[in-house]
């Protein structure tokens, strides 16, 4: 029997729930007893209203599609306090990352900077291009000018393998 959220008529989804749980390793959302230690210390609680214990509760109830298409999963600051402090090894952080992965897989709208970083990694292995920086006196400085060694990027083989790994 599946649950129905009477506010939205959304139904729980056992299959997706299992998919999320199968991606977690040594992390057990189903053992959460809602003590809210995660939420009380959450970096994103005040500004972005992230409540990690609610994410865990919704995963346990099976409302995965709703979470994967919600903006709330993109408000985590990855400070890892919830993971550290959880007495039940439920780590909302890991659950949130699994939900983000699912959102990508389902082609939900996600912050584009993540995709840009991945595209850049495919290009030369690094998440951003080498920059020329400016000093306090507004003078431009490159790696070369600062006497730093030349970058040694990965070779072409990297791209092929990484593409394959990304595609699963």
């Amino acid at each position, binding site marked *: 029997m599946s649950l129905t959220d009477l506010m939205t008529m959304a139904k729980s989804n056992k299959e997706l729930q299992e998919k999320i749980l199968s*991606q977690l*390793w040594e992390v057990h959302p189903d053992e959460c007893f809602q003590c809210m230690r995660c939420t009380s210390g959450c*970096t*994103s609680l005040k*500004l*972005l209203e992230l409540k990690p214990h609610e994410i865990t509760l919704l995963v346990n109830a099976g409302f995965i599609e709703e979470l994967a298409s919600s903006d709330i999963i*993109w*408000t*985590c*600051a*990855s*400070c*890892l*306090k919830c*993971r*550290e402090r959880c007495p039940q090894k439920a*780590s909302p952080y890991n659950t949130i*990352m*699994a939900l*983000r*992965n699912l959102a*990508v897989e389902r082609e939900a709208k*996600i*912050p584009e*900077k*993540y*995709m840009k*970083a*991945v595209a850049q*990694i495919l290009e030369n*292995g*690094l*998440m*951003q*291009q*080498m*920059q020329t*920086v400016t*000093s*306090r*006196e507004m*003078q431009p*400085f490159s*790696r070369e000018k*600062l*006497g*730093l060694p030349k*970058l*040694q*990027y*990965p070779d072409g*083989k*990297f791209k*092929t*393998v*990484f593409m*394959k*790994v*990304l595609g*699963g």
Partner: protein
Amino acid sequence: MKVAVFWGCKILTAQYAYEMSVRQVFPHFDIELMDLKGASCCGGPVRSINTSAAMYLSARNLALSSQTGLSDLLVPCNECHFMLSEAKYRIDNDEQMHKKIQEQLREEGLKYSSSVKIWHVIDLLHDLVKLDAVKAMVKKPLEGLKFAVHPGCQIIRPSEIGRVDSAERPRKLDALVEALGAETLDYSEKLDCCGAALLYSHEDAALSLAGSKLKAVQGYDVDGFVDTCPYCHIMYDARQKEAAATVGGKFSLSVFYYTQLLGLALGIKQEKLGLHLNQSLDSEKFKVK
């Protein structure tokens, strides 16, 4: 002693002052650094897109490290340090993952080995070099100065995978600053996050988190602020003005990488430590150009 070093992306492509100061200070303690050839991103930003692909990237860099034949790997970026440490923990304890990763790496002719020990600047100096050896090398003590230190999040949590310092009461960075003759401050916002990871999705919130911490620190009347992560440093140094604007203030807090302060105390020339690249530095107070 020879140590391999994995810089990650941010340091190599923009946070040059950290790279310069790390390269300058370690030879003073007889530690020779060896860069990894062909290193890639640690997988930090990839994790949100595809967690297994992120783990592959971390494992790949660990494999490159073991290829050097060196058993120690320095990872100066907090995020990279977390990604690599977590990947190592998982691969070493999950046989299935170990097998999968080895298969993926084989395609690039690489092999993962569990023998690499991952260090950060903080524990390498505090636990391996040791405080007494740091103190003994100080030529220009930073006497009369008081700093607030920011250890960051990802090198102290989660403790189950083995981290650099205590998750709730980190003191190693304080001890390292004190070893240079300066004072440090115990303050209630010490564990607050810089917010950098939110730059991807909620830039205003990210700046506001940095701003709130800077505002608190400014109120404690310190001479400067010390960090050890390129992400935290971007938030507190380069983006200090924007961060201040989100909390309605004007700050003048000088932000240093720890290795820059250490370099100054060792008597290394300022320009070699990249101090001219710190946007927030009060040049008059610290007598730098």
